[in-house]
């Protein structure tokens, strides 16, 4: 397809952009996804692949509800992707654990989940604390220091690289136009619609969706949307493929359907730096081995660092421009968990009458007034 006028141009070809783009082509729109080149920062290539509910939303109950809803429709989303692309993204929802290696860790966890669920407007969801005796029945080979865990039956995981490929495959199969090498430089009004100057030439579209991850910080203001996102580094270790032994995902440790053990969940404020750091990797490895000593014998085959797209309060931004109607912005650091709702409700809103008031808590305007220290 030649780049010409599109109903919608989605800026960003990661999980967020392709989930929205997939949702839009499923609704019959003519959609372009404008992407950078092969070496772009790409959180979607580095994420941890959880579809996770249990700890989300402290400080914004609406986010907890949004997350829970996405997790609830994930199974049908996965089935739809499978039917359209033939790709099984290996979604499963066995419930997830957060293991504590000391009573102090367990206490902090208890207090955090209690605060989360005590928030006004919180839609409650089930969770419980599991003692060591019961944990041993779930996880053979548990390390002696594990004292207990929180458990939420709504948690699951997926093969996120296959999800990434399935979204691209589905998008292409439904006639979407994926344009790599089209980093967007400027956005200008094109009444009606928008003109985008890109590294690959000009693009015009009636509506645009900014889903450019960290790039949204620069692009948002071009359409009057405040998106103060920053990169936050996370590092991941993956081992060689092993026979199945972890039946549930743990927030920092999971076994993929292909057999590799992923270990993750570090947080570092180091700017746009995707180097790995041995000290952090060593800390992650040590905690994993304390949880499951047998893991110590597995070979590490890869490590990587990727950049979370983080807002000041850690919650997503969903916004639409007042100054340039038809411009939307979407940014989050849970592109896997939220993929289902992005492809479904969010895409419907963008294709239809815009974002409803129920999404107002996610507006970037919340960052216009400096937060109290």
């Amino acid at each position, binding site marked *: 397809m030649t780049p010409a006028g599109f109903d919608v141009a989605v800026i960003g070809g990661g999980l967020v952009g392709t989930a929205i783009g997939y949702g839009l082509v499923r609704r019959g729109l003519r959609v372009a996804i404008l992407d950078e*080149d*092969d*070496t772009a920062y*790409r959180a*979607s*290539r580095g994420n941890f692949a959880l579809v996770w509910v249990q700890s989300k939303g402290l400080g914004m109950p609406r986010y907890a509800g949004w997350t829970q809803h996405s997790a609830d429709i994930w199974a049908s989303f996965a089935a739809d992707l499978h039917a359209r692309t033939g790709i099984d993204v290996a979604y499963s929802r066995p419930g997830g654990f957060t293991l504590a290696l000391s009573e102090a860790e367990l206490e*902090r966890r208890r207090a*955090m989940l209690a605060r989360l669920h005590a928030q006004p407007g919180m839609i409650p969801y089930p969770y419980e604390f599991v003692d060591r005796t019961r944990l041993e029945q779930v996880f053979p080979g548990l390390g002696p220091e594990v004292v207990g865990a929180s458990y939420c039956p709504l948690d699951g995981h997926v093969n996120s*690289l296959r999800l*990434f*490929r399935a979204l*691209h*495959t589905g998008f*292409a199969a439904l006639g979407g136009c*994926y*344009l*790599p*090498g089209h980093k967007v430089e400027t956005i200008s009004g094109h009444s009606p619609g928008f003109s985008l100057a890109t590294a690959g030439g000009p693009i015009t579209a009636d509506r645009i969706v900014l889903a450019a991850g960290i790039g949204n910080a620069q692009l948002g203001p071009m359409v009057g949307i405040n998106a103060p996102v920053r990169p936050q580094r996370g590092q991941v*270790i993956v*081992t*060689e493929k092993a026979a199945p032994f972890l039946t549930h995902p743990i927030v920092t440790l999971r076994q993929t359907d292909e057999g590799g*053990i992923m*270990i993750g*969940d*570090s*947080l*570092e404020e180091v700017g746009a730096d995707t*180097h*790995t*750091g*041995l*000290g*952090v*990797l*060593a*800390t*992650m*490895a*040590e*905690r*994993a*081995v304390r949880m499951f000593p047998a*893991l*110590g*014998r*597995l*070979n*590490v*085959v*890869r*490590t*990587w660092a990727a950049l979370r797209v983080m807002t000041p309060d850690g919650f997503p931004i969903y916004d639409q421009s007042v100054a340039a109607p038809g411009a939307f912005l979407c940014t989050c650091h849970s592109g896997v968990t939220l993929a289902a709702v992005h492809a479904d409700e969010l895409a419907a809103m963008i294709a239809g009458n815009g974002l409803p008031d129920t999404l107002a808590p996610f507006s970037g305007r919340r960052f216009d007034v400096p937060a109290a220290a």
Partner: protein
Amino acid sequence: MRTLPDVAALAPAYDVAVVGAGPAGMAAAIAAAAHGLSVLVADEAPAPGGQIYRAVTTTRVRRRSLLGADYWRGAPLAAAFAAAPVDTLPEASVWHLDDACVLGVSAQGASRLVTARHVILATGALERPFPVRGWTEPGVMTVGAAQILLKSSGLVATGRVVLAGTGPLLWLLASQYLASGAPPALILDTTPRANWRLAAPHLPAFLCSPYALKGLRLMARVRRRVPVISDVTGLGIDRDGAAQLVTYRHGDGRSGAAAADIVLLHQGVVPNVNLAGAAGCALEWNDTQACWQPQTDAWGMTSVAHIALAGDGAGILGAEAAAVRGKLAGLAAACALGAITPQTRDRLAARPRAALRRCGRGRAFLDALYRPAGSMRVAPPDAIACRCEEVTGADIRAAVRDLHVTGPNQMKAFLRCGMGPCQGRMCALTVAETIAEARGVSPAEVGTMRLRSPVKPLTLGELASLPRSEADTKAVLRG
């Protein structure tokens, strides 16, 4: 040379760390140590020599005519290395290097971090991937592998042995097998016919080189005893009971087949760039040799301060040149660390530089003649490109066609090619060249896979044993 038993015996810091004990690594270590620098040499093999001089101090295959004079040229170098005041850690892997010159070293199941003031990577070459249908079948190996078995264990392949491919090493092994009384059954020569025309302008220089006479003699000797089928343009291997059936196509369109008990493939060697790439050294596409190589200056210095490359890891020039480049890198290290002045370095480098020029004579001819055909550097649809994750040429082409993948990093995310334990060593070139062909652009435009440590596996337990700071702990342990 002081041989260290394990990582516990390593000093916490060295002036110079050399990775690899082939000709470049040995020569670099000798040169650096000669100027009073403390030197560590880490290598994967039990004894020095690298691949070209593999087991030169230990082999029982001592008939000089068998492995040849070029092999035994490694003996005096290994002897000088043994006499040099350096620490060596054999049977070790260096799985990490960063721009602070911190090395992650693993041996005997334990890992340790070592800091150097200057690092010389002498990681050498590996055989270019040869992605044909069936190249993953047991009984299909590389020519280099067969040569390693011969040098280190005195093993020669028996039964119907078919050699397929192109390049000097293929002919050398054939001649070594002849001398061992185990002539190959057949050679399928994939040297593109057009290469002779492209190489012809470089022929006069080649004829003045040390390689010319012995190379031509060697080929003539092999051709007298071994059937050779030239101008092979297509190749495939299928399992046939316990044996293989090698099918081939000629440039003129005819085809044929040969049964084989062992198939040995080879189409030249390419730099082993994984550690340099993971350390952040900029890589560039060498179109003459159709491979990635680290950018280096005349002293082997890379784009990263205090990390140098020596030998074939910086671009293929052969074993003799590797030793010379090692010496130059050693001198550069001594100068960079203040042990000698730039004037002394330059004076001591004069003879090696002249030797390097001599070694370079004839290289252009060899590069042009033995540049493998483009069709042999890409994965055909029915061949596995990534052996670890079992990704085929068809998979890669489909992803370019249907998903508009432009480069190997997105390809890796979609298909997992390059994610296995070999870390792309067996597929990075193939994936880049296959994407390039499918897109109709050059591999330079396609780019290469991002490389990261660990470039060799270490256990999670070893990783867990490494030191960490308070900030590192805080980055993981959160409220």
